């Protein structure tokens, strides 16, 4: 089992390396030869300051979402759980909308975006995501009751989503920027953002590795986990914190990227049935590879036009899952 996990991990890393090389080469004019790029200082600058950070950033964002998805599915013992379940998605949107409103900018200026504006939107989105989770926890009176937590997350999501819509309607100027945020985008990621996200990813990976035995124990139900000596209220709060931090960081930088968090663990499971230690790490690797591939295709398919990356993740991940379900139901019918 462990050898298979190592093999799959290596495979995902190799895939990421290949995608990184492709990501550096693919631009708005199609595929560049990397050797030619090295001799042209302008082209090299484009690769170094735009293509590389957004490609690496796509991997880190996807890894954060994949990890958050695996944590959410283990924590809620539900394969349909996704990282936005605790209201963090709507909270981040509201934060971003308020930041844009406060900046009072036209869409063109927002797109060009000064560095400070970018930091402001990111900070507001992150604060919104974390506040939404705190709000959900308050509503559910702590993390002890999974069902109450789920219900609280849904309610907070709806209410904050409605608030975001009110803000957007009151200032139609920000509509276009908001749409970009809602669909998710990896195109504005710079090295600073990548460094910040990578440190959060390292932190979250470490914490979830420490908490993996809790998720294993929870697979047998909360009472059994408690009978094994796991102090659930404390440990579950720690898991919620990891979930909120990973999701909030990803959403703040890249918007509401659909489906990566839900799909990544499901893409790992048919390849490897394992305890959560390996599942969490591999889901992060799978999420990273998925979003990196989507980012690449988003730039490539309609170049020089760019597709929203969230649309592609839904198409890619969703298509694969559909095929997987179809294959499984065929196998079930044949049995």
């Amino acid at each position, binding site marked *: 089992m462990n050898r298979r996990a190592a093999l799959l991990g290596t495979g995902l890393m190799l895939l990421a390396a290949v995608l990184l090389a492709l990501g550096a080469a693919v631009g708005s004019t199609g595929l560049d030869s990397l050797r030619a790029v090295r001799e042209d200082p302008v082209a090299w600058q484009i690769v170094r300051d735009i293509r590389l950070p957004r490609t690496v950033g796509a991997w880190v964002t996807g890894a954060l979402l994949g990890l958050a998805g695996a944590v959410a599915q283990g924590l809620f013992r539900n394969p349909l759980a996704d990282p936005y379940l605790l209201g963090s998605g709507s909270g981040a949107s509201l934060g971003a909308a308020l930041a844009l409103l406060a900046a009072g900018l036209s869409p063109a200026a927002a797109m060009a975006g000064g560095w400070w504006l970018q930091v402001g939107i990111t900070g507001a989105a992150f604060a919104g995501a974390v506040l939404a989770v705190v709000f959900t926890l308050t509503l559910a009176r702590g993390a002890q009751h999974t069902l109450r937590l789920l219900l609280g997350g849904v309610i907070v999501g709806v209410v904050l989503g409605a608030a975001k819509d009110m803000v957007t309607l009151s200032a139609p100027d920000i509509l276009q920027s908001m749409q970009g945020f809602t669909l998710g985008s990896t195109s504005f990621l710079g090295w600073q953002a990548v460094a910040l996200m990578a440190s959060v990813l390292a932190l979250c990976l470490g914490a979830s*590795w420490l908490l993996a035995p809790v998720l294993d124990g929870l*697979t*047998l*139900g909360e*009472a059994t986990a408690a*009978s*094994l*000596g*796991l102090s659930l209220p404390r440990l579950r709060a720690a898991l919620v914190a990891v979930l909120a931090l990973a999701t909030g960081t990803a959403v703040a930088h890249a918007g509401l990227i659909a489906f990566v968090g839900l799909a990544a663990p499901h893409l790992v499971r048919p390849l490897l049935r394992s305890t959560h230690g390996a599942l969490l790490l591999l889901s992060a690797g799978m999420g990273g590879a998925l979003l990196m591939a989507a980012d690449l295709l988003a730039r490539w398919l309609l170049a020089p036009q760019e597709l929203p990356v969230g649309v592609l993740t839904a198409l890619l991940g969703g298509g694969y899952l559909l095929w997987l379900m179809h294959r499984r139901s065929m196998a079930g019918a044949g049995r």
Partner: protein
Amino acid sequence: MSGAVLQARAVHARLGHVEVLHGIDLALPAGRWTSIVGPNGAGKSTLLKLLAGLLPCSGGAVELQGRPLAQWPGRARAREVAWLGQGEGGADDLSAYDVAMLGRLPHRPWLAPPGPADHAAVERALRATHAWDWRARPLGELSGGERQRVLLARALAVEAPVLLMDEPLANLDPPHQADWLAAVRSRVAAGGTVVSVLHEIGFALQADDVVVLQAGRVAHAGAANDAATHRALEAVFENRIAIRPLQGQWVALPRP
């Protein structure tokens, strides 16, 4: 009474706003197997959870080795008391071996890989329930009975002095019910304390002691081969069963 490993003193318990147990006194000595029986809704599972320290008492206290359960640190308690619940779902992606290994969680330092003692305990447990041969199969691909045997092995693998089991025979076919009986007997012979909630009266009467629970109170507690216990059992089931000896064992016959 002082020899009791696990003792309930005037225990009350609530589920939501409803009080389910109204003052239970119970002493469970080492080296004995006790069956808890009673009609549906008598509070059997609740009592078992209380004894495992999984539910707080709303009155009274449960003592493990003379010390209130609430004062035990979780992991230390988990090494002393193993609990098998009713209809534990999930874990479909874990192999039978991984599930049984979860029983070793209280014995292992956090994140330490399982040691030789853990592997040995898991192998003993899986062999005892005859699940060793397909230990690599994920739980999601097992039948109900096979899954129950893995869950049973998970509880056995803790190798705790006190073993509490809620409906352990669910989905088991007769040969594996006999295996379960053998596992319990060897546990008790080694000085362990076993408490089981059982629906099948015939199996419950194989135990050393029987506690008859009715509407959240102990209706009777006594030896399994005592006539008074049999009368109490018949009474609690509205005299719809008759307990008769057959080839040196007690059987419960339905009475129309």
